[in-house]
């Protein structure tokens, strides 16, 4: 819809008037054959009702509409108009083509967003500033957020319930599998496969660790103090229950593979340590060297399902 003609300085040529809205052409388009020009919004609205030129009724479709010639655009852009915000006190007189930029910056725009300086930090339209009340606005904000928080809490509780339900079902299923495995060889293979995959999934969920001081290794850890703490950490990290006891056994050099089982062999094989892919035991100065991560390591340096190495220090 075109610009109100009264906003313009002096007379506006009849050629620059939209025959539909009778305002000054805004974003004009023209019909292809007769070259009658209209505001884009006006002609689009008209063509949606009737595919003709509103002046001479020649057939025109929306896709045939063309931009108007440059000379017409230039004539339009040279027209001088007052600002949209003139009723709000803006006295600027602008060329039509600089109007859009001016409107973005115009200080008299009643809807210009302004940050509240009273301290609430909200950004509000200028014309609402007079009625603005920080406390009221912030209270409303708190109320909506509280509402959201309650929703989330409820959702969380529901999800927890669902998860517990799933856990229970999973435990039952595992029990079932274990029972089936004894009697059925296919089931056994399947269960073994699932267990292996479970270990791999768990291994992938752990962070890589780097041992900076292999000399800090504790090869004969204290069962109660150290081993129990490691076990708890592993269990919390999601270690599959069927390997956790084996892993804990493998904390001690008496269960380590030949290449690690004594101080002497350890010193001989020291350069092989760098080949290990180590995973962090969360929160502990200890690493997991899992068989599934270390298929590239020689057999005399690895055991199933993996090793746990406890250190005095030097884990990153």
């Amino acid at each position, binding site marked *: *819809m075109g610009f*109100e*003609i009264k906003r313009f300085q002096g007379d506006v040529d009849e050629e620059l008037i939209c*025959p*539909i*809205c*009778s*305002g000054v052409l805004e974003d004009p388009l023209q019909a292809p054959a007769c070259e*009658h020009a209209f505001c884009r919004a*006006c002609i689009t*609205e*008209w063509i949606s*009702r009737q595919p*003709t*030129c*509103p*002046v*001479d*009724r020649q057939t025109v479709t929306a896709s045939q509409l063309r931009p108007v010639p440059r000379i017409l655009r230039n004539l339009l852009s040279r027209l001088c108009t007052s600002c949209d915000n003139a009723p709000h006190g803006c006295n600027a007189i602008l060329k039509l083509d600089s109007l859009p930029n001016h409107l973005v910056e115009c200080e008299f725009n009643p809807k210009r967003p302004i940050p509240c300086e009273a301290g609430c930090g909200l950004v509000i339209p200028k014309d609402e500033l007079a009625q603005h009340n920080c406390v009221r606005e912030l209270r409303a904000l708190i109320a909506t957020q509280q509402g959201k928080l309650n929703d989330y809490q409820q959702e969380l509780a529901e999800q927890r319930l669902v998860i517990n339900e799933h856990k229970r079902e999973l435990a039952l299923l595992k029990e079932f599998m274990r029972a089936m495995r004894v009697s059925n060889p296919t089931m056994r293979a399947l269960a073994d496969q699932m267990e292996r995959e479970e270990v791999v999934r768990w291994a992938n969920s752990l962070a890589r660790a780097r041992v900076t001081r292999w000399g800090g290794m504790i090869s004969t850890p204290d069962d109660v103090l150290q081993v129990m703490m490691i076990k708890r950490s592993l269990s919390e990290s999601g270690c599959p229950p069927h390997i956790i006891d084996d892993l804990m056994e493998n904390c001690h050099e008496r269960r380590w593979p030949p290449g690690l089982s004594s101080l002497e062999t350890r010193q001989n094989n020291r350069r092989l340590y760098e080949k290990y892919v180590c995973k962090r035991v969360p929160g502990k100065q200890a690493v997991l060297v899992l068989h599934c991560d270390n298929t590239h390591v020689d057999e005399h340096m690895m055991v199933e399902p993996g090793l746990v190495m406890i250190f005095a220090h030097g884990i990153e």
Partner: protein
Amino acid sequence: MANIAAKRIKREFKEIMKSEEVIGGSIKLGLVNENWTELKGEIAGPVDTPYEGGTFLLEIKVPETYPFNPPKIRFLTKIWHPNVSSVTGAICLDILKDQWAAALTLRTVLLSLQALLSAGEPNDPQDAVVAKQFRENPRLFTMTARHWTNVYAGGPNIVHECNSKVQRMLDMGIDEHQARVALSSYDWDLERATEQLFG
């Protein structure tokens, strides 16, 4: 949209007041209400037609969707014309219907209506009775149209033949307009007109 309608009508109103037709007195336009949705038009009957010397009032309703839809116009002054209902004043004119174009204005519409008075189109009638007379008995049609113009539109040409026949029916206690319609519809045959009213 309503905004466009009001804006356009205001501008058209201003333009039409400066037009030579208004200055010359052949058309007039007036406001009925404050919000520019209803106007009153007036056209002078064209010279060399039975409507000459008459003044015809028009009701103009501007829809909210104007100018994407045509204004709704009807004759308030009773008129005997094949394209205007002698009962309701409804007009059959293509530009007020499917041939409306958004660039048409109240001025062009009023001028088109004036042209319609100069050249009736009996093959696209609004009033079948009038159209039939227009085609089959042009002399009677002209007389009737002139009589109606004299009686309803303030035309100067008195048609004595019509007046005396209407008076005869008035004497029988028949309502004047009813009598005139009946006589006009039956080609001023007093007997058939009376028969129709009492039958």
